[in-house]
């Protein structure tokens, strides 16, 4: 990867982190302040790996670099009910348990293809766990929302215009 792009991405990461100060957090706690759903640093890291498995770094940043796991936590903490938060937290823990049971390894330690297979199985509901299913549904929806609404995507990949200055109701497009 070009040095310039790396630096840019680090700056974007740094900007994201600046919004979410971690210096005052107790050790072992999540790196952002959460009001309603306490999450440990370990849980946060598992969530980071799960979101990165969904949206991996390629020639553009993935979920972790864009702090999408922190966005997911922020949204669940602020916009979901207590019952949904409980299920989310429980489901998150169970993903790691499931990984240990199936592969004797934590989710974070699995190779990429095994992570993807595990998430596919969860998505296809091959594991009979309502809390894992609830966690996955919220996590995937918020990760995708966070990705498509991230500064990186909105300014570099799928451009969102603040000032379009035009309207064409007969804009020619290719038909497939």
């Amino acid at each position, binding site marked *: 990867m070009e040095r310039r792009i790396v630096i840019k991405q680090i700056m974007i990461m740094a900007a994201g982190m600046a919004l979410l100060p971690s210096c005052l957090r107790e050790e072992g706690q999540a790196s952002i302040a959460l009001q309603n759903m306490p999450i440990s640093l370990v849980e946060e890291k598992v969530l980071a790996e799960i979101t990165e*498995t*969904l*949206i*991996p770094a390629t020639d553009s940043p993935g979920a972790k670099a864009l702090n999408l796991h922190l966005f997911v936590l922020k949204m669940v903490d*602020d916009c979901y009910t207590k019952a949904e938060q409980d299920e989310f937290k429980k489901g998150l823990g169970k993903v790691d348990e499931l990984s240990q049971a199936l592969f004797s390894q934590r989710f974070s330690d699995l190779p990429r293809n095994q992570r993807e297979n595990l998430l596919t199985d969860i998505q296809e509901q091959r594991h009979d766990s309502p809390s894992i299913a609830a966690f996955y549904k919220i996590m995937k929806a918020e990760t995708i929302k966070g990705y*498509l609404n991230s500064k990186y995507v909105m*300014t570099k990949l799928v451009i969102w215009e603040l000032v379009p200055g*035009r309207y*064409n*109701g007969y804009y020619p497009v290719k038909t497939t």
Partner: protein
Amino acid sequence: MVIIQLKPHNLTSMANINIDAAKASTYDVIVIGSGISGGWAAKEFTEKGLKTLVLERGRDVQHIKDYPTTNKYPFEFEHRGELSLAVKTENPIVSRCYAFKEDAMHFMVKDKEHPYVQEKPFDWIRGYQVGGKSLLWARQTQRWSDFDFEGPQRDEFAVDWPIRYKDIAPWYSYVEKFAGISGNNDGLPELPDGEFLPAYPLNAAEDYFRKVMKDKYRNRHVISARCAHLSKPQQVHFDQGRAKCQNRTLCQRGCPFGGYFSSNASTLPWAARTGKLTLQPDAVVESILYDHQKGKATGVRVVNRLTKEVREYFAKVIFVNAGALNTNLILLNSRSERFPQGLGNDNGLMGKYVAFHNYSARITAEYDGLKQFATDGRNPAGGGYIPRFRNVLQQETNFKRGYAAGLYASRYMYRDDSAIGTTLKNNLLKGELGPWIVSSHMMGETIPKESNYVNLSSRKDDWGVPLLNIAIEYDQNDALMKQDYISQLTEMFSEAGFKKITPNTNSQNPGLDIHEMGGVRMGHDPQTSLLNQWNQLHACKNVFVTDGGCMTSTSTQNPSLTYMALTARAADYAVKALSKGELT
């Protein structure tokens, strides 16, 4: 504002200070409210050289400077625009409003800040700040025709309007030129043409629907929505400091270009430049003062929103533009020996015959054609407008009056989110244009009735003003009209070959239309109405109501343009009356 502290050393100086205080508090005109109609009153009076005090109950909001979110990207909002659960739980009423989102919630009254009593469920959506709801409105602007003004008389409801189209037509032209209204001259008697800037054109699917309707029906017209956006600003708009609309469609945040009309961007700064305007925010009007000897109103009593200090201001003429229901509240609370039921309320009808617009049905469908076209940029007008086609020339259905309809089409970018990993990422970024999705919503006329009313409750707010009690509900006419809208639009969509036609009649409470009107209606007869043909209280001629409170009936058009025209017309009348020595 100058705060005059009274320090009585002796009686003489006390008296002098009181005289000075009265002078400092005396104006030619007091305008209560700075929203869309209050802003117009301010402009008209100051332009004509009258010393004008505008009282606004909320905080100051200055154009551009006080639009904190206006240039934010979606990722700059903590929840990307969504409301947190805590905000939703605290604000069940205002959360139901489409505009109550992270980017504009600071311009809307929170439920707990200003409670009211719901004798029947009513979502009262308010914007308490300088500019009021003119910052937030949907900017749709259509003229009324005589089919509307003659409606109550022909169909035997409410009372006859004391004015006709010819009385207001020149004033429509007057306000359109200044505000800047984009639209086409469509040549429809039911929706008169005006002084328009170029219209925002219909898109491919809307235009296709227009052609089908023209072929299949005699009187169902799909036109470009007429809206208060500067599609091609003229000198008078540049003079206001406004510029061309930039198609951002982020209007609810306040527009840094002044691309749409608001009091903040247009009438208030215009009035301020005359040097005749005093704009007083944080001024809650408790009541209007009436002098029995003089037989007229002399001023207003105001409670400071922040300090609760009570002050009185005096003027020759008072314009009440507090927003329809708050105008009712202030007048009902202005009780005196002469008017024990509220100022001008000799017949006891004040607060009654309140009506609104029925927005409780919409319909959506897919159109599989015209896939060689999509849209580029954004349309600030929103799309198309279908003027009322039911019961226009004569009564032809089992319900009275009718509905206008919004009509808009767009193609959404579908992003396949089923995969995981690199495939998911690529699919999300790629996206695929879906078919045209065509939608419509109804805007139905409701019939004003004595049983739909507001009055004062026994509870008071933090400023000592009674809470408003609201008892307004839909009726059988509304239900029949809603059914007809669904069946007619279903038929029209079918004629156009649309598929997956999906009506949605989830009922919303009255009020969520944000078109509440009436309670202080205009009419010929002091026995059955509160205001005359010049918007003066029949029984107190130096008090005028030119906001939604004055409306005798609602028609189907969005009401704001009519409030603007009525205000400019009434202000012109008041100035002429003053110069002839009347009103004083």
